[in-house]
Every structure is written in structure tokens, then in C-alpha cells.
């Protein structure tokens, strides 16, 4: 496999011989699976392949040149920042060019106006440290400290810190986007050549080209630079301690502190989150799955199963924890005030404080998302919603019910309803459902479960992340639109008439259903006989 020689030569002239290769040993390193997010599943096996060549630009101008060459020679391409997001960020068609963006690693911080400007290759944890050095902080996305901040913000971009820091689209400021044909779009205040301090453009808000609920998986161009809002933090240092694997940030307890409360019921749990938001206190308010605690306690995979094996449906049903991060943003007195308010709320609702370590192992600087693979070997956050707090908890429970039907291959988790938390001071509730399995087993059931979740969401009327290009477009589009899919395809056709940018997204899941025999019995929706896209 390789791309046309003329195209290769032109690309080589654009970036230099050192930064392009079609050697099989280089291309093999860019294989999606078999492990990783959503890997080891049918989609990864059927829909992904290794690139025909890999190119590593350094600047936005080089990205533009590359994209224009791809258009000239009709070479399909996929943008790739860290490759962590599983099959979706890897090549889907033969002889495709993978544009590895890790060398776009520029970084600037504007201490006075509270923002950073980053390239596509910059990940979260260094940004957080640089921000903290200047008295500010950002979110470490749930995707992990190792996720490209840009990729995360145009896809997901939230974490427990969203309780205070807010949703991702509010933090995307001036942005540079190379369209599928190579044209450069500057968004927000960058559009008129100003500093990247503002996200809304002078005309229609073009940030919609980057993301809706959860993004378009790189099929509408390449974001090469973005200004990200930071927010003021407290000034005391958070000190790294320990030797791997037992490392954590020691917290200055008078300014930063996690507190866990055991609540008497689900209703009290939700009410507590609501009241904490209403009182406008805390930096994070969350409830995580019980098995995460088992992961944290276990020294190894085998010990996890020993610990987890002792849990029952009953213990899960009665696990009503509320985990609160208190931050004295302005002073120790403010922190004390927040804690007093929190204690008042908890006293009223019957919450009992549990011993909590004076440290942070995840969320503030390190989201341990990689640890999610320890238990079973394979993992995906199958879906997430942003609803009201009370609605969010129902979402997780409905997933848990469906999941029973597919266990095994899914991990036995005693009906754990997943993770939920407060966003934007309780104005929204977030629910995320996570599934685990062993990729070495028969994973047909996981593929089926994934698709069935979309049908369940349609039936239950949950507005979820698994819309658009994240599930078969012709399944979800008519149900949520009724012409959502048609508009998405019109946008794609307008900006990328050749469908050269990461084909066949946004119809990749439709294509998957067509190709994977074991998925066909589940297809009970209408779609065109021939999917409306060029064939690569």
C-alpha cells in the first residue's frame, strides 16, 4: 500500500524528507488496534487499515499545503493528533494519508487575559502545569491527561471540574481551522486579526463546524491552533509525591481538598449535588462507578477481581457517594465558608463524611483514563448525556438494564449505573456509561450492544452523544431530526465535495453495518441502497 508517487513527491517537498514516510515499518506503527479505545471490536477490524503514508507537518501553512496536494491528487487523508481515540482517528480506506499533527506543538500562555494558545499536538497535563504556574487552571478532560487538548475540546472536553469551569464550547476561543480543501478559516476574534481572546465570530458561529455535542471525528478539516480559556485557581502548589505506580498530588488542604460523603439514598445524592450547585460552592461534584474504587485499591488486575468479586447487586444499589472537591479560590476563609455550607447541606440530607486522602490521583492534573483498561483489557465510554441532574441518573440505570443482556462478553458489574456528576453548578447533570470486555473473547455481543444503545436512547428519548457520525447516521438522523442527517451530509458535501477528509465519516457506521454480516440482523431502519458518498 502506498500513495501515488507524484503526490508523495509533492508532500515531501512541502515538509521535507525527514517528515514523511511510506515505509511499511513506519505505517504499521499507526495501526489502530488491536488494543485501545473501541479497539478489538468489529468496527476496528472491518473499518480501519494502516496508512499508505504518514506525514508530519510543523505549521498551519504546511497543513494547508498537504491538504491542497491531497485534493489535487485525490489522496484521502485523516488528521491524527495522539491516536488515542481508537479506530475513529485512524485510516479507514486503502492508500490513505495519515497527517500526524504531533509536531504542531506550539504553546503560549496569556496570564493577564487567562487563556492559552496551543497547537494540535499539545496535550493536557503540560497545559495544566503551565496554567497552575500562573495561578490558573483548565480541565483535564476525561479522555485523559494525555489527550490532545484541541482534539478533546472538539470532541468531548469535560470532567468533574466542569462543575465550575463549564462546558467545552464556552472555553474554545480563537481557532484556526484548515478546511478539507486547504482554505484557512480563522474563528472568533482571530477572524479580524485580533488576539484569540474571544470565541464567537463576527458572523455565524463557525464553531459548529468543529463540534456539536461530540464532534465530527475529523471529517470537516483540521484544527491547527486554538486558544483555550483558563480560569483563576488558588496559588498554593500541588506537590507530586510517590513513585509510580503510587503517585499523587499532595493537596494544600486549607486551599484544595476532596471530601467524600455517603448519602442515604439516590434522591439524597441528587439533591446534594443540586444544592451544592445552588450554593455555588465547590470545584467538582461527582459520583463515580464503584469499580473505580476497586481499581484504585487494587495493586494489580488479579487483585481487582478479588475485590470486585465481593461486591453484589445489593452493595451497588446502595452505593450513594458524593465526592466533592473544595477549592479556596480566593482565600482560606472562602474555602472554610464553602466547607461550612457543604457540611450544612450534608447534615440536612443525612450525608456522612468518609475518610478521604489529602491528595489527588486523578482529575486535577492526571485523568487516569488508561487505568480503565486494567480490569478486562478493553474499554469504551459507550455513551454520555448532558441533561438535568435527576434525568442523568435515569440514563445510567437504563443502560445498566440493557447491559445485562450482553453480559458476557461485557464485564459483570452488578448493574452499576456508571458515572454521573454536576455540570455548570448543577444546571446540568452529566451521565457517562462505561463498558468493559476482553477483546480476546467473542465480541459480537459488544458490537450489538453498542448499536442497541442507540435504539434504546431513541426509545427513551435521551439526547445523547451517540448521534451523527458516532452511530449509523440513517438510524439516528431521522429520529432526532427528522432531517438532521440530510443537513449533516449537505454540510459535508459543501465543504468537502470530494469526501477526501477522513472518508467514509460521517457515514462510517452506516458503512460498517453494510460490511459486517453479524450486524445485519439488527438493521431495522431505512437507508439508501447506495450510501450517498464517493467510494474510495
Amino acid at each position, binding site marked *: 500500500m502506498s500513495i501515488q508517487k507524484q503526490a508523495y513527491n509533492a508532500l515531501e517537498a512541502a515538509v521535507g524528507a525527514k517528515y514523511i514516510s511510506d515505509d511499511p515499518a*513506519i505505517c504499521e506503527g499507526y495501526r489502530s488496534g488491536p488494543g485501545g*479505545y473501541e479497539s478489538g471490536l468489529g468496527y476496528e477490524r472491518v473499518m480501519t487499515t494502516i496508512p499508505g503514508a504518514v506525514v508530519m507537518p510543523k505549521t498551519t501553512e504546511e497543513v494547508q499545503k498537504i491538504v491542497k496536494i491531497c485534493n489535487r491528487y485525490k489522496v484521502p487523508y485523516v488528521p491524527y493528533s495522539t491516536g488515542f481515540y481508537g479506530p475513529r482517528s485512524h485510516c479507514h480506506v486503502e492508500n490513505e494519508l495519515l497527517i500526524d499533527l504531533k509536531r504542531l506543538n506550539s504553546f503560549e500562555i496569556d496570564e493577564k487575559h487567562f487563556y492559552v494558545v496551543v497547537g494540535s499536538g499539545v496535550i493536557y497535563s503540560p497545559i495544566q502545569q503551565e496554567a497552575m504556574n500562573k495561578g490558573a487552571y483548565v480541565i483535564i478532560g476525561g479522555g485523559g491527561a494525555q489527550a490532545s487538548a484541541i482534539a478533546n475540546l472538539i470532541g468531548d472536553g469535560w470532567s468533574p471540574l466542569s462543575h465550575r469551569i463549564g462546558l467545552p464550547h464556552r472555553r474554545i476561543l480563537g481557532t484556526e481551522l484548515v478546511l478539507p480543501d486547504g482554505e484557512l478559516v480563522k474563528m472568533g476574534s482571530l477572524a479580524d486579526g485580533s488576539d484569540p481572546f474571544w470565541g464567537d465570530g463576527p458572523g455565524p458561529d463557525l464553531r459548529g463546524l468543529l463540534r456539536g455535542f461530540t464532534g465530527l471525528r475529523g471529517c470537516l478539516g483540521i484544527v491547527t491552533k486554538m486558544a483555550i480559556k483558563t480560569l483563576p485557581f488558588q496559588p498554593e502548589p500541588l506537590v507530586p509525591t510517590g513513585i509510580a505506580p503510587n503517585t499523587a498530588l499532595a493537596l494544600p488542604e486549607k486551599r484544595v481538598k476532596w471530601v467524600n460523603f455517603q448519602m442515604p439514598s439516590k434522591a439524597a445524592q441528587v439533591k446534594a449535588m443540586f444544592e451544592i450547585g445552588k450554593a455555588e460552592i465547590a470545584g467538582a461534584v461527582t459520583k463515580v462507578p464503584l469499580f473505580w474504587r476497586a481499581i484504585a485499591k487494587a495493586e*494489580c488486575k488479579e487483585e481487582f477481581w478479588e475485590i470486585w468479586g465481593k461486591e453484589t447487586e445489593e452493595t451497588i444499589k446502595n452505593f450513594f457517594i458524593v465526592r466533592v472537591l473544595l477549592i479556596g479560590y480566593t482565600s482560606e476563609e472562602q474555602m472554610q465558608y464553602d466547607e461550612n455550607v457543604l457540611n450544612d447541606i450534608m447534615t440536612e440530607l443525612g450525608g456522612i463524611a468518609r475518610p478521604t486522602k489529602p491528595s489527588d490521583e486523578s482529575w486535577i492534573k492526571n485523568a487516569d483514563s488508561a487505568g480503565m483498561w486494567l480490569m478486562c483489557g478493553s474499554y469504551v465510554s459507550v455513551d454520555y448525556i448532558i441533561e438535568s441532574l435527576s434525568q442523568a441518573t435515569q440514563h445510567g440505570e437504563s443502560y445498566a438494564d440493557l447491559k445485562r443482556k450482553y453480559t458476557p462478553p461485557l464485564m459483570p458489574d452488578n448493574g452499576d449505573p456508571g458515572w454521573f456528576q454536576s455540570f455548570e453548578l448543577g444546571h446540568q447533570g452529566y451521565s457517562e456509561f462505561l463498558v468493559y470486555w476482553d477483546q480476546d473473547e467473542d465480541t459480537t455481543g459488544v458490537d450489538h450492544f453498542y448499536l442497541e444503545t442507540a435504539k434504546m436512547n431513541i426509545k427513551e428519548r435521551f439526547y445523547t452523544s451517540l448521534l451523527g457520525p458516532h452511530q449509523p447516521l440513517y438510524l439516528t438522523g431521522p429520529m432526532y431530526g427528522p432531517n438532521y442527517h440530510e443537513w449533516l451530509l449537505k454540510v459535508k458535501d459543501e465543504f468537502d465535495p470530494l469526501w477526501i477528509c477522513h472518508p467514509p465519516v460521517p457515514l462510517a457506521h452506516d458503512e460498517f453495518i453494510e460490511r459486517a454480516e453479524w450486524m445485519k440482523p439488527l438493521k431495522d431502519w431505512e437507508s439508501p441502497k447506495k450510501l450517498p458518498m464517493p467510494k474510495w
Partner: protein
Amino acid sequence: MRKDEMFDTPKKKVALDVTNLDNFVYDMDHCIKCKGCYWVEHTYMPGVEFSVRCPSNLWNDFDSYGAFGKMRIGLAVNEGKLKWTDKLLEVIYADPLCGACDVGCKRNLDLEIGLSLEALRIKAVKDGAGPMPAHKKIAKNIAAKHNQFGSPHENRKKWITKDVQVAEKADVVYFVGCSGSYVNPEIARATARVLNASGRKFMLLPDEWCCGNTLYSVGMIDEARELAKRNIEAVRATGAKTLVTSCAEGYRMWKVDYPKLLNIATSDLGFNVVHLIEVADEAMKKGDLKLTKPVDVRFTYHDSCGVSRLCDPWTPWSGERGWMGTVSPALKRRRGTTGLYAQSRNILNAIPGAKFVEMPRKRENAFCCGAGRGTKEAFPDLASFSAKHRLDEVKSVSAEVLVSACPWCKSNFSQAVKENGDNVKVMDIAEIISAAVEL
């Protein structure tokens, strides 16, 4: 858990045996590209500068040069889908096997990345593709002259000077190594002085040969095993209870890879293997070694890989892998936690008159100098790049002196300093201890 919620997964035999790449298929195909092998552990992430811990993948940005790329390549090689080529050999061998990837992965996933990479090189040699020409030359030198530089064997003890007392018979044997014997005699002398000053009587092997670190590291396992047998027997024949090294690579070889090669535990060697760091730390605690002479420098410390994340003792393990990838019997993973991190710092903080400053990347997150395990010989450009990158970090903390615990690090850093024209002095930990001892 209910049985109807679990697959009845057939158990597969598996062993921590690097002579068969099949043993590491599970590890290779469960890599998730989180790049914990590449980035400094996020808790310790210092910022946008010095954020990477993988020398290979910083030297060459393509994913194939990172462990996450090599895991995919390893699977393709194992399945016969990828043919050996010059580029593939470069990907496999342009790598100091420094263990940063291994401890990074074991922060969260416990995959055997380091062993997978070693097994891949062994397969390269078995397939007739590896090692690199420079490594074959070293193998010839060792076979002919018992040292890797091809120097005359009779010169091995030339480092000994009159002020050094070497015993005829002692409980401790000092294994000097090829570098200390031929290239960095100042380290051997300083080590001997520190042992003398500590009151630790030591002898030398009557006929010391190369430890075989490079042979093992490049996959020449048969040759390495023969050396291991020969050297272990030589130490046992002396009756010594403890073997001391001043070379981090040699320390790792004796403590970890010899037992691995012979399928025994480190504790079965019949003698203890220690680095000078451990001897000096213990002697200081007991009051046998007193650091009293002021050394007026601002210095920093580079954790050499062999005395840090790579030196957990070896225990053979074989068993079965079953449901959800769990193994039995219990496997104690080697995660680099018993590195000599505290011991070295106990010493360095006790150097009178000196100011010890840490670099942003330290202990298990340290950035390798890039010289070890056959890299400098086959890929001098990578070794030079890594050393210069690390020197940038040395300069970022305004250190005048860089201290390490391995002659390979010292040589490589010294060469980089010379090429850069840097105003940084490179010393071994033996030398700075020796400088602080009133003799």
C-alpha cells in the same frame, strides 16, 4: 460474581521468557496508545518543556519509534506480516531500552513492554536479521579480547593506582566492567577509594571478562548466556558474598538479566549484587563513611536507568492466563519501584558545601542519556541527541555539575558537552563521593 455472567475462558500457558515472543502477544495487543510510555507521568508533568520520557520517539517523531508503535510492529513481526528491512531494524534497535516505557505502562496497565522489546530483538537475531553491524563488531571484540572495546585483555587492571588498596581475599568483589577498566578508569579508582574509605575490604576477579550487557541487550542471547554462566561461576569460585559494581548497566545485567538468562531468581545467584550507591549509603548510615570535605558546586543528578527503573530483582514466572487476562499463580510485576532513588539522594544531599538541585524529570521519569544497550555504537546520532536534550535540562536548573551513576552516561554526556561547548562538568557519583572524603 454469577457464573452465567462470565465466559469460561480457556487458559493459555504463558511465561516471562524472552526467548519466545509469543509470550508477550497479550501485552503487545493490549497496548492502548495512551502513550504513558512516552510522556512523563502526568502527576509529575513539569510543563510543556521536558514533557517526554522516551528518547527514541523524541529523536524520531514517527509513532513506530515509540513503544506503542513497536507493540503493533511486534505483533506484525510475530505473525510474519512484516518483513525484516533496514528500516525495521532501525526502529527496533534505535532504542536504549531504558525502561521509561515499561514503568510508564505499569503506572496503569501492567503490560510487559520492556520484556516485549527484548524478546523482539531476540527474535530479530534468531531470524538472522539482527543485530546491527556495530553490535556484531562488539561481539567479536568480546569473543577475542573479553571486553567490548577490543582493548588488550592484559590491560584490564591498568586502572589500579598505588593509592588504591585491593585485597587478595575478601567478602566483597568489585566487578569493574569494561568501561571502568578501559575508558573511565577514574570511576574505577574513585569507587575503590570510596570502598577503602568505607572500610569495605574488596577483591577483584582473578580474570574479569565483559558482563555481556550489549550482547544481551541486542538479542544475542546464546552468547550472553555463556558469559553469564562463566562470570557467575567465577564469582562463586571466589567465595565472595557480595558483588559491587560502579556501572549501572553492569548492575542491571548482574542483578536482573543474568538470572533472567539462566531462569533463576536474583536471590539464587549465591551472592548479593549491589551498586556502589548502596554500599556508600549503608556505610554513611553506619558512620563508616564520612563526607566532610566541602565540594563547592551546584550540581544535579541523572538517574541512570540501570540503577533506577530497570533494577527490580528478577523472579522467574510461568503460569496461565485466563478470564479477563488474569494470570495465575500470582505474578509480582517489576515496576521499577525498588530503584536506588532514595539511596543516591541520601548521599548527594550529604555532600558538604554543595548545592544539590533536581531536574524536572527525575527518578522513574528521568530522561535516558541514550547511550546504553547498544545504542551509542549503532546509532551515535540518537545517543548524542538524547544527551544534548538532557543537558538542556541540566542547564535549566543552572547546575555546574552533572552527576550520574554509570560510566556509559558519563562518557556520553561528556562527549555531548564537548560537542556543545557547554560549561557543565560531568562526574560519576563515585567521584563526587570521593571528592567529599578526607583521604
